[in-house]
Structures are given as C-alpha cells and as structure tokens.
C-alpha cells in the first residue's frame, strides 16, 4: 500500500458537536498529524454536500484514508463507507472518530471537550494510517427457514415465507400449534381467537412447503446466515396419524392433571387433545406425567398409540431463523390480590378461556357455580410496578383485552355490574373506541394511583377496597368474582433460547432487536429475525404484522440465494503461523482448523464461518492470526496515540 494520505473531516452536527467542541481547533490540530493531507469541517458531514466534500477531496487530493470525526460509527459508518466507495476508495479505508456520543454530549467544559476531541481524532488518524483495503465475500444461501414458535406470529411468518417460495420448518414445543391466541375467546368484539387461528391453520394444511414439527425444540444451532445447521429434538408424542380422535384412550387414562390449555380451569388426562381445533389433529401423551400403564394402547382400536416411541433428532439446513416463541402470562404470587386464596379470583387468561364457546362452561360466564352479579377487573397485575413482583413495563394488551371482555359480559349479562380498576387505560390508537363503547355500556371505571386496591376475603364474601382517585376516597365494592388482568413475562425458557440461538436480552428480559426504532424485527445477529411478543408485549395484530415483517426481511436477505459476508474476519499470516492450534480451541464458531501446507501445519480460517470476534487474534501467541480491521498494529497505534506515541511496523 502506498504512503497514507489521510483526509480528516470534522462534523459540527449542527449544535450537537460544535456546541461543546471547538471544531476549528480540532481541524487545525488534525492538519498537523502525521500523514494528514487535508482537514476540514462542515455543519452536517452526513448530509449530501458533506459527503460530496469528502468525495471531491478524495479525487482532488488523491486521499487514500479517510477519518470522519462525527458521531458513533454505529450511526454513520455505513454512510461514509458508501460515500468513499463512490469516490473510488475501498470502503474499509475509513475510520470514525466518535466525538459526539463520546465527547460533546457527555462533557460540558468546552476546553476539556476540545482537548479530548483532538485526542480522539489523533487516535483515529493513528489507526487510519494502518488501515488496509478489504473485500467482501459472497456465499450461497438456502432459501429455507426455521420458524421457532407456532403461535400466531410464527404461523404468520411461516405462511408468508411459504408464499415467497421458502421451505419452512415450523417448530413448536407443545403438541399443537396455535399458541395463546387460539385460547382467547374474543380478540376483538367480532373476532374469535380460535376462528382466526383455525383459518390460519387451514392455510398451513394446504401449504406443502410448510412442515410442522410439534413437540419439538431447537437444541443446537450451528453455521451462519444462509447456511444454518439446526438440530431439532422431536419428543415422542406416542400417538400417530392413525388417531381418529375417538377419545376412548382419554377415558381409560388414569392420570389427571390441570389442563394448561384451559389455564387450569379444568383437568385433563395424560393423553389428551389440547383443544378442539388443535393441529396436528391427534391426541398426544404428556410424557412428563404419563405412568406408562399401557391402558390407552390396549383400548385404541386404530393402533395409533405406541408407548415405546422415542425422541428423534432431526438435522436441518436452513437459511434463516425466525424466533417467535412468544411470552408467558405473568404468574401472580399466592395472595397477590387474593390470588390462589379464593376460587372466584381468576386471571384474565382464565376469563378469556371461560368466554370461549369451547370452554368447560361452553362460553358461559359461570364462576364459582353461578353467574356473578358483580365482577371486577384489576388492571396492571404484574405490570407497571404495582406489586413487588411486578415488572416496570406496561404489558400493552391487557387494558384492551379486559375492556373487550367487559363489553362482551355486558352484552350477554346486562344485569352484571362490571368494574375495571385501573391506573391508566391504555387503549391507544383506534382501540380507544372500545373504551368509549365500554363507557356507554356502563362499565364502571375506577382509577387508582400508587395505592393499589386491596382484595378482602371475608365470610360475607369478596370485597375490593380501593382509594378512588377521582373522589379521593376509600371505597369498598362487594364483588362475586375478580379478574386479575395479568401482564406478560418473557418466556420461561428464554435462557435456553439465548444459549442456543445467541440472541440477547434487554433490561426488561425480552429479546433485544437490532434497533428499537428502525430494525424492530431483526436480531443483532445477521440472519435471525424476531416476531411477536419475544421482543416485548404486543397485541395479536401487532404480533401478526411482525410475523409478516420478519418473513419479509428474511426473504429480502435470502431471495438472491447468496449472502455477502463482511470482510472484517480473521486472517492467518502463513509465514508466521506455526500451527500451534491454540486458535482452534478458542474459536466459538469452529471456523479454524489446522491444515498441512507444504509439510507445515498452518491454521486455516473458514471465512464464511468466521463472525469476526477476533478472540483468536488475541490468543495467537505468535501474532500470525490477525483480525482484519482490528489488527494488532491498528489497535496498538490507536493505544499509543492516546499518549501521542506512534508505532512502527
């Protein structure tokens, strides 16, 4: 590479930088740094004229390295890389000096901030002197997808992907797809959850490109975008497709447990059908509770049951992974608003189930044996810091769901008094009309603030005591039933999900997206997308749209059948490598192996597998393994430049 000719461009970012950093001084300072040919300032470097300024200079001054002192590289590195590429320079000959997030925005003393900005620029220039041109790589990509989670978001994503011509594996942990939406009585005043789900399931049945794997979990994920190797364990269902749903097995089964598909409102056997429209439409045996007595096997006339069935491991090659494993309902602790202490205190999910025509009461609102005359909803159970166990976030769907149910109750049982005790009613957007409607139907809204309602269980019955905000008085409401509007929790097994897929979590415990605003369905890892409540509470419509969007993003990425790989990966200097193999053991992606070249053991990096973490480069005892873009020399130069020193090499 020829002698570095560096251009330094210092951005004002309007006031954001220029307000705290004396940009002119930084430019003057930069002019005197080694190899710097030009140094300039501009009000918005990222704007078109700002970029043009750089492009023109590259041509006019024959620049071969560019330093942009502006914001964080996470914002505009791509912008400027593209710009210098347009000017004919290799796009990796750019270094960003972060003088905004790291300087002007966090310091107030103008003099000190200016000094710091100078040093940040000096560090960037020092690294830039050792930058090298890098080339991107292309690898083939599978147009197939693994969708994790057979809830409504996952189903939507699978359908969309199939529509785009992808082969889809829809992996669901439980014996049926449909998720929780299938269990919700009414998801809006006109629409039954079960109906929507069965319509979607019908489409899946018709679609040959979707392979549904129930009782299945992802246990290992290797490979990389476009070329994932997924290992799926399919736990035995013990019942095969010969099952006719006759139900005789269920009658003879001696084991009875709470039915999680009715949120514990009823009991089921160890062999069971989750719900009427479950898919695939066969019974399943819950292997965790089955005692293997063999009664069901004996009674089944269709030989649909095989208790000797074993878990199977399936190895799949897929191009992308969509994570849509949803949420868990908040689990109130015993005694939280009397939960668990009185049979007439139930959760919103149980109520929803009760109102479903397929429920144990056939859709009738029967609690504790009768239709309640007074029923109260308590909102924000488990959300918005109401109780010690509660989360800080708002669970987004509970207000609308509770109000929707209240309206349904009022429609069918006009004599029942409905109370909704709330902090703030979160019927955002068009859902507001439901709130209005509920008001018209004389649902009683009772606002509380910091002091949360108290549930009193007395011999005379249930009471709620609450400090009513608008009258500023304690009131006591006699009720027959209480519905706790529980929020959402990250799914219980999110730790395993993280361990296998390497997605990461934000502070609230849900999976983090690549960018909260502008990349809401992408995981930070290329090729992994997110849909539904796995990134945080959402309502059904939002989950569905997210499923569509995640599929769309996956399609856009893979539809060409090839993927471009960032070139900032590990590279071996074969002259130096002695084949000591320490790098092989540290690589988390098994991207390095030892090969024999001309009789010498040499480390070999599988470029497509390398994700560019650089840990091999840190471990390499001989300096043979280098992390392109973060080479020893580049980082040393940056380090030394903090103190005004230089490296030679």
């Amino acid at each position, binding site marked *: 590479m020829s002698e570095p000719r560096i251009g330094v461009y210092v951005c004002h970012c309007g006031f954001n930088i220029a307000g705290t950093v004396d940009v002119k001084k930084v430019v003057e300072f930069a002019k005197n740094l080694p190899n710097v040919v030009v140094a300039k300032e501009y009000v918005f470097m990222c704007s078109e004229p700002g970029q043009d300024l750089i492009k023109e200079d590259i041509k006019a001054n024959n620049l071969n390295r560019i330093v942009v002192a502006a914001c964080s590289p996470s914002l505009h590195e791509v912008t400027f890389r593209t710009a210098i590429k347009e000017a004919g320079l290799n796009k990796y000959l750019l270094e960003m000096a972060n003088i905004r997030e790291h300087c002007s925005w966090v310091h107030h003393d103008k003099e000190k901030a200016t000094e710091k900005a100078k040093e940040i620029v000096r560090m960037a220039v020092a690294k830039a002197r050792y930058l090298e041109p890098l080339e991107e790589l292309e690898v083939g990509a599978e147009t197939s997808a693994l969708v994790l989670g057979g809830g409504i978001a996952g189903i939507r994503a699978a359908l969309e992907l199939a529509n785009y011509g992808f082969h889809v594996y829809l992996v669901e942990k439980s014996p049926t797809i449909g998720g929780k939406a299938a269990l919700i009585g009414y998801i809006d005043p006109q629409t039954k959850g079960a109906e929507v789900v069965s319509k979607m399931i019908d489409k899946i049945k018709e679609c040959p490109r979707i392979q549904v794997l129930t009782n299945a979990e992802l246990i290992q994920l290797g490979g990389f975008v476009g070329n994932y190797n997924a290992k799926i364990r399919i736990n035995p269902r013990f019942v095969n497709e010969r099952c006719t749903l006759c139900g005789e097995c269920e009658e003879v089964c001696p084991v009875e447990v709470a039915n999680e598909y009715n949120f514990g409102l009823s009991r089921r056997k160890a062999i069971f059908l989750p719900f009427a429209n479950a898919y695939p439409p066969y019974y399943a045996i819950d292997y965790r509770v089955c005692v293997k007595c063999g009664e069901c096997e004996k009674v089944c006339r269709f030989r649909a049951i095989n208790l000797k069935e074993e878990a199977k491991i399936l190895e799949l090659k897929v191009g992308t992974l969509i994570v849509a494993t949803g949420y868990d309902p908040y689990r109130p602790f015993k005694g939280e608003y009397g939960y668990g202490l009185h049979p007439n205190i139930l959760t919103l999910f149980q109520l929803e189930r009760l109102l479903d025509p397929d429920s144990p009461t056939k859709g009738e609102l029967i609690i504790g044996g009768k239709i309640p005359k007074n029923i109260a909803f308590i909102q924000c159970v488990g959300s918005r810091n109401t109780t010690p166990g509660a989360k800080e976030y708002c669970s987004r769907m509970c207000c609308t769901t509770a109000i929707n149910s209240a309206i349904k109750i009022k429609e069918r049982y006009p004599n029942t008094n409905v109370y909704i005790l709330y902090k703030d009613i979160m019927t955002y957007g068009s859902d507001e009309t439901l709130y209005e409607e509920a008001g018209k139907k004389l649902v009683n809204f009772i606002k509380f603030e910091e002091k949360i309602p108290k549930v009193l269980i007395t011999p005379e019955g249930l009471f709620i005591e609450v400090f009513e905000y608008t009258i500023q008085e304690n009131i006591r409401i006699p009720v027959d039933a209480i519905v706790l509007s529980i929020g959402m929790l990250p799914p219980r097994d999110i730790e395993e999900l993280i361990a296998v897929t390497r997605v990461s979590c934000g502070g609230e415990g849900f999976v983090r997206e690549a960018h909260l605003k502008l990349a809401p369905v992408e995981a930070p890892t290329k090729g992994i997308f997110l849909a539904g409540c796995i990134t945080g509470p959402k309502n059904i419509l939002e989950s569905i749209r997210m499923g569509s969007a995640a599929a769309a993003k996956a399609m856009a990425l893979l539809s060409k059948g090839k993927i471009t790989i960032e070139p900032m990966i590990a590279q071996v200097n074969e002259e*130096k490598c*002695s084949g*000591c193999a*320490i790098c092989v053991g*540290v690589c988390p992606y098994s991207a390095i192996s030892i090969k024999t070249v001309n009789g010498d*053991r040499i480390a070999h990096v599988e470029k497509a597998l390398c994700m560019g973490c650089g840990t091999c480069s840190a471990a390499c*005892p*001989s*300096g*043979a393994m280098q992390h392109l873009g973060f080479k020893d020399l580049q980082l040393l130069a940056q380090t030394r430049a903090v103190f005004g020193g230089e490296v030679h090499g």
Partner: protein
Amino acid sequence: MSEKPKVAWYWCASCGGCEESFVDLAERLLKVFETFDIVFCPVAMDFKREDVEKLPDGSIAVSLINGGIRMKEHEEMVKLLRKKSNIVIAYGACSAWGGVPGLANLYNLDEIVERKYLEIPTIENPKEILPTKKTIVNIPEAKIKAELELPEPLPTLLPIDKVIDVDYYIPGCPPTPDVFWNALQALLTGNLPPKGTVIGALQRSLCDECLLNETKPEKLLVKEFKRVEKAIPEPNKCLLAQGFLCMGPVTRGGCTALCIKANMPCTGCFGILDGVVDYGGKAISYFGSILDYSPMEEKEIKKAFESIPDWIGTIYRYSLPSAKLSHRAGLKRSKLMKEVFEI
C-alpha cells in the same frame, strides 16, 4: 596488519553460558579464527579498554555483546563498542532482553544485595560484610597495595538495546552452536535481514519444529496447569495439551526443540517473535485461552492460576527488562547507591 575483519566480544551481566556456547562451536571455531581477527575479548584475551579506545571509529566489523547492562561500566563499554563497530550484535537472551538476571528488576538494589550477601542459605557471612565502593587491597608479601573501586550499579538491569542501537540479535540462553553458526554465515555472506531483527533462528514459533506439534488434540483446552517439579509428563504428547506451561507457542523456534526432546517444556529462551509486542502479555493471553472454565467457575480458575507460584518467572524468564512493564513499579533509589556510591 591483517586484512581480516575485526571482531570484538564483550560480556556484560552474564553467567558465562554464552562464552561457553562459543567454545561449543568445537572444530568450527578454527574457521572463526581463520576468518576473523579478534580485537577484544575479556573472557579469553588480555585486551584492555584503552586498546579499544585507540581503534578508529567504525573499524570493528562486528561486536558481539552478551549479558545485560547492570553497571555503569557495562553502559560505558557498550557505548564505546557501538562507536567503534560497524555491526553490533546482542548475543544471547540476557543481552537481547535481559535474561534471567533481568528478573532482578522486581527488586530494589538493596533487597538484591541483602539477599545475595546475607540471606541466601548457601552464604555464610556472620560479620554481615557488604560491598563498599572502595576497597584497599593490601598484600604485603606480594608488595601489592592498591585501591580498587567497584563500578556503580544501575537501579535496574537493561537489555543492551535500551542503551545503544543494536543491529542484530542472536537468541538463546545460550544460543545453540547451530544458531550461532547460522548467524556467522549470514554475517559472512552479507545475506542479512533488515536491521533490528533476529538472525540465525526461525521466523515461526517453536511449535513449528517441535515433533510433538502433531500430537495436539483438535481443541487445545486444559483444566489445570502442571509443573515438571510436581508431575512427570507423558512422553510423545504435546506438553501444553497435558497442562504443562510450555512457552513453545510464543517463543521463537530455531533451537530444534531441544528441551522438549528431553521431555521438558520450553521456558522461552529464544524469546519474542517479530510482530509480538510483549512476550509475557501474549503468554498470559494463550494460557488464559486454553483454560477451559467459564467465569462462573471462579474458584476453579483461581485454583488453576494459583497452582503456579511464580508467574512472572514463568512468562518473563528471559525477557522482563524488555517487557512493556520492564520492572516493578515504585522501585526506590537504593540505600546502597546513596551511602556507598554517594549518589
């Protein structure tokens, strides 16, 4: 008189091993005497400092210097040789990186003197006599009466390149005859690499020539570190893979893996490779890398690290004075310097 190139050989803080290695050239030594004219060599010949001072600047073709700079005298002598020589070669680990005597940089001079003259078990010094700057030597029988003056010690030991410009390095503690011979060949033929590099040895690390390199498992991960004092290595199996702290991966090759052939882990005497900035830093990095525990298993990690009593002696056995942190922080100007040498 003679037209043969002049060679000087000087020793600084040295154990004598390097001089020994010269003798180890055996019959090849004759060739050396044929080729070179030795103008200074305190170990074998009675040339004096004045003899060197008299030579014109740059008239010595090659000066070989072994041992690190421990005393003012060393500093003066290497500076003098630099002036008089065309090429200066740091010969052996001490001269190149400080060597084993360089580990003294962990201590104050006083601590070293006290240890050396009073504390170590093999010393008997009931009167607690310590060195003094001036000593009167009076042997009436031989009619000798003289005042001897000890050269002033420096607070730390330095590799010679911290005092003068060094052209080439010949590694080893001591350099093996083959390495020395290779270097001499290179000097004679003029087939020399860029200034400041090592001659006579390999560009790759020791593993490259180690016969046990092939025996490495696919993933080199260990659960504990072992020492030869406490465990006997299995033969014919990579020592590092067994948990022995072999410095082979981080050490320059060229010795033909002599120690490992004797079932001893490499201790690193061939020193740092080109492109590596700090020998010990790199060693730490790969020892940390191959230890197979998660941070959750803090106790196991600590235990593994604590099983090695002398980490500095392990990772910087031959190179502490040339490391980025070349001596212990907070070393004090010694009492000895103040009281004895009045400085």
